[in-house]
């Protein structure tokens, strides 16, 4: 049973008239669609995530002093790490179910509220990629790699996005980096094979 309750009642509606209102259009669209899930726990997590994301700009201004000191928004709102982890795991499940809008809500919530981790930015990027925004996805894969240069998934997927965006030379660098990261580990053979395949295909690219 989740014990976390995000208290956003203290955020005045008038306080939202600040500079940070423009939200990523895919996230805004996902929030407008009011995603629900048959599993009650995931549905509850979705509700919580939607409330937090809608109030996030006002909340960050309200808690600016704490955020500057290094606290996360989750800490300011008493959202436990357990809830963040459950939200992340639910996002992973939703991606597997190809419910990318709902997954985007949960992964964005974890990214916005939680500590910056490469796996969180990777999940947001994955949702954006599956929803058709290769440019945004590429940016978030880059952010994953800024946090962790050895994030193999981000390296491979960034290669895919760059290829889609027409930057073949950069895509080749990312696939080659993926091959290097996977080298010597049998567990990564499928990823390595996929990256090598992309490199082989790249010989045919313009």
């Amino acid at each position: 049973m989740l014990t976390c309750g995000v208290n956003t009642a203290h955020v005045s509606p008038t306080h939202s008239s600040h500079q940070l209102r423009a939200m990523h259009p895919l996230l805004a669209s996902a929030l407008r669609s009011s995603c629900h899930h048959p599993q009650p726990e995931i549905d509850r997590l979705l509700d919580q995530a939607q409330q937090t994301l809608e109030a996030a700009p006002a909340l960050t201004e309200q808690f600016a002093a704490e955020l500057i000191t290094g606290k996360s928004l989750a800490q300011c709102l008493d959202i436990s790490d357990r809830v963040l982890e459950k939200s992340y795991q639910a996002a992973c499940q939703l991606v597997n179910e190809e419910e990318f809008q709902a997954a985007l809500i949960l992964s964005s919530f974890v990214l916005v509220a939680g500590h910056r981790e490469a796996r969180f930015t990777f999940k947001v990027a994955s949702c954006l990629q599956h929803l058709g925004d290769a440019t945004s996805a590429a940016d978030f894969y880059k952010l994953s790699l800024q946090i962790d240069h050895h994030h193999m998934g981000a390296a491979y997927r960034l290669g895919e996005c760059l290829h889609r965006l027409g930057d073949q030379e950069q895509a080749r660098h990312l696939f080659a980096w993926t091959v290097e990261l996977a080298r010597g580990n049998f567990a990564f053979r499928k990823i390595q094979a996929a990256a090598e395949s992309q490199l082989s295909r790249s010989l045919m690219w313009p």
Partner: protein
Amino acid sequence: MSVASLPQVSIKKNTQFPMVDNEDDSSVISTNSSLSDDEFDSKTESASTSVNVSDTDSSSDQANTRPSCPKPVHYIINTLSAVGTFGGLALITTGGMGMTLDKPSANPIANGAMLLSGGALLTASFLGGLYHLSAQGPAE
């Protein structure tokens, strides 16, 4: 030997090259990835935190066995998009992600974003780059 006596060789128009799966060519330019998230979720973390070294190796040796990020890749990942709807969001994220809000970033794009508005950028940086500065929004 006359040309007419040479055996005729037929050339198929749609020759399949073995290294390229033409039937699956659409996946190359598809938005969707050819590998599912599952392929990465569990494995990538271990790739980032473990290396194949013996138990007797020291931790410093382990760090040395990890490949260093090549310069071209390093350059690519530190160059965020400056165009498109999401460009502004990514720029702002750089400020937070790089944790260099109090000093100039190595990324000139991030520097540009930082110049926009210190307070607003600082706030935006905590939102993971999913929000951006409103063009009409005057500072309060």
